[in-house]
């Protein structure tokens, strides 16, 4: 048995928050939730409070001079986490405006201490703490200074074994503010606006004794409340999946002939890039990949970024989603890669999914908020590694403009990060637009080097023969080989 104190970590139940906090919120900690107006501070505080408060572990929510309490209650109850039955049992709202309005911090502190003594809350919230500060500054108040106030408040709350949250409107984190020094935890919320796009970001600037996740993490506020999206690599860190062993097992692609071209199927845990021009059948190939998995008793997940999902989603994919065997990550406004990764991982966990499709990278990039497009390549690489680490075999489609003088596989330079590549091209033969497909790469595995013609009908993709009599296929306008050409044949 150790004689060191064990710090209990409270699970906030705010999706993703405990991960970036480094395992939850330290009990009895003194925290500041800060940010500009409208960034979600009060919502986050309420969500944490409703999750943690119980009759045995009650909460007091002090309102000061900020948002009128009636309005706050009116809006906060729109969230799913708001439980009316908890009011006046496990959660008590107390208004301090009459004490704060005179700007006497001693009086505010006394009132807080009185109420805390009276109700012995395990959780204390002061909203908005900034208004306490402003009220004390209004008329050169001779009473308690802010520093003393904060220090005393922190001391009292810790002594009363209360986990405390001050909610405050602060505009710059570089302010020399005593609150920042005294607090054990500093959760900073931001809104990043670029053109018409707005992205919410959260940073744990400080959390004493916790291995927090550094950096800015995107979050979203929906009817369910705040949902934070830690990087998929950290948030989900699943144990090494058996599928992660390369070449241990190969997955069938669901397109007759393609498995042979890949050297016996796609190795489990590999990422495959299917690149081709518009209409070449990339999404059909992706759908076949998912359907084949379901047929073999596996489950999958698809991140679909079509412009109009209801119209353009294939019947095969729609049926798979309806069957519950394939999860769907849908397009949303102002996405971050972390958010997509988080949702993919949620589906992988929920369904035990082993096949992951991202259709397409072009749509994915367009769906991202502009602020994230800069890091697209790097973030995508991390995402693919994480998905593979979780046992997912990943198929990504990529729109590739046919450039017959330039053999490329991806407009994003993503080719290097994938384990396998299939490229599809249009070619012209006898005044017809034909399609050819080739396996360009399967890491650490033999594979076909053939350029195979293929067709698409209602049953999917049908791979045909090599166009052995043609040459210059990749140039788009092949010619019949001279040696093989008979009399009268086109040359």
């Amino acid at each position, binding site marked *: 048995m150790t004689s060191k104190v064990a710090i209990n970590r409270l699970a906030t139940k705010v999706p993703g928050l405990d991960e970036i906090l480094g395992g939850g919120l330290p009990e009895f900690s003194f925290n500041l939730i800060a940010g500009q107006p409208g960034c979600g501070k009060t919502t986050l505080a309420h969500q944490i409070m409703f999750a943690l408060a119980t009759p045995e572990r009650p909460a007091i929510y002090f309102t000061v001079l900020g948002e009128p*309490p009636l309005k706050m209650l009116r809006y906060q109850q729109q969230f799913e986490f708001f439980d*009316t039955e908890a*009011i006046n049992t496990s959660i008590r709202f*107390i*208004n*301090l405006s*009459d004490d704060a309005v005179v700007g006497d911090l001693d009086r505010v502190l006394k009132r807080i201490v009185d109420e805390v003594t009276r109700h012995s809350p395990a959780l204390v919230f002061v909203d908005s703490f900034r208004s306490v500060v402003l009220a004390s500054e209004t008329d050169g108040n001779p009473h308690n200074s802010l520093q003393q106030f904060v220090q005393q408040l922190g001391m009292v709350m810790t002594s009363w074994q209360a986990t405390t949250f001050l909610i405050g409107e602060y505009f710059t984190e570089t302010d020399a503010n005593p609150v920042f020094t005294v607090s054990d935890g500093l959760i900073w919320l931001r809104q990043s606006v670029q053109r018409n796009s707005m992205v919410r970001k959260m940073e744990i600037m400080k959390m004493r004794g916790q291995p927090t996740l550094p950096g800015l993490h995107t979050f979203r506020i929906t009817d369910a409340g705040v949902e934070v999206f830690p990087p998929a690599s950290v948030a989900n860190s699943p144990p090494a999946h058996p599928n992660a062993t390369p070449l241990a097992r190969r997955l069938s692609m669901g397109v007759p002939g393609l498995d042979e071209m890949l050297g016996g199927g796609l190795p489990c845990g590999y990422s495959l890039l299917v690149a081709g021009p518009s209409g070449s059948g990339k999404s059909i190939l992706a759908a076949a990949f998912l359907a084949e998995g379901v047929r073999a008793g596996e489950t999958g997940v698809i991140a679909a970024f079509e412009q109009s999902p209801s119209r353009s989603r294939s019947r095969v994919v729609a049926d798979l989603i309806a069957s519950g065997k394939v999860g769907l990550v849908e397009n949303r406004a102002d996405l971050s890669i972390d958010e997509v990764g988080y949702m993919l991982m949620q589906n992988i966990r929920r369904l035990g999914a082993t096949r992951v499709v991202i259709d397409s990278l072009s749509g994915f990039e367009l769906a991202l908020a502009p602020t994230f497009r800069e890091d697209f390549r790097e973030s995508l690489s991390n995402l693919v590694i994480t998905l593979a680490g979780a046992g997912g075999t990943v198929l990504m489609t990529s729109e590739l403009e046919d450039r017959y003088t330039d053999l490329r596989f991806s407009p994003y330079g993503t080719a290097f990060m994938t384990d396998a590549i299939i490229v599809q091209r249009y070619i012209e033969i006898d005044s017809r637009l034909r399609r050819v497909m080739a396996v360009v790469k399967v890491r650490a595995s033999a594979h076909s080097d053939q350029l195979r013609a293929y067709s698409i009908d209602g049953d999917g993709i049908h791979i045909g023969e090599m166009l052995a009599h043609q040459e210059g296929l990749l140039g788009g306008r092949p010619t019949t080989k001279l040696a093989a050409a008979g009399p009268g044949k086109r040359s």
Partner: protein
Amino acid sequence: MPSPESDGIATFLKRTVRDGASSLQIAEAVSVALQGIDEALTPIIGKRGVAALHQRTVHLARGSGSWLILTKEGVPTAMDFEALKSALAQQEAIDAADQGALILQTFHALLTTLVGPSLTERLLRPAWATLLSGPSAQDTTS
């Protein structure tokens, strides 16, 4: 917006009239109910918050009759129980019961429009309980 609680108040007040309560007793009962509301809401929304709701309640209730006058102009700082009590006490007992019930029902309806029926019921439950479980208005004179 009628509710079981506010209807219960109206029934209670009418019953006390039938039992022979005077308008003053009715006024006192309504005042007790309002004080219960004040006690229930002041910790949560502050004295000024409750006073503002009361002022609006009186304004809305006046729409159906000119018996009640707003005693103070401007932003109220506390609920004015005395003005209301005095206005009700000057009515006939049955009118005082109707008008007192109207005030309480209006307050309930106003809060309901702001924070919804569920939370209103939750917040005002102690106030109604105090009134309905306490001694009847008739007993208060003894």
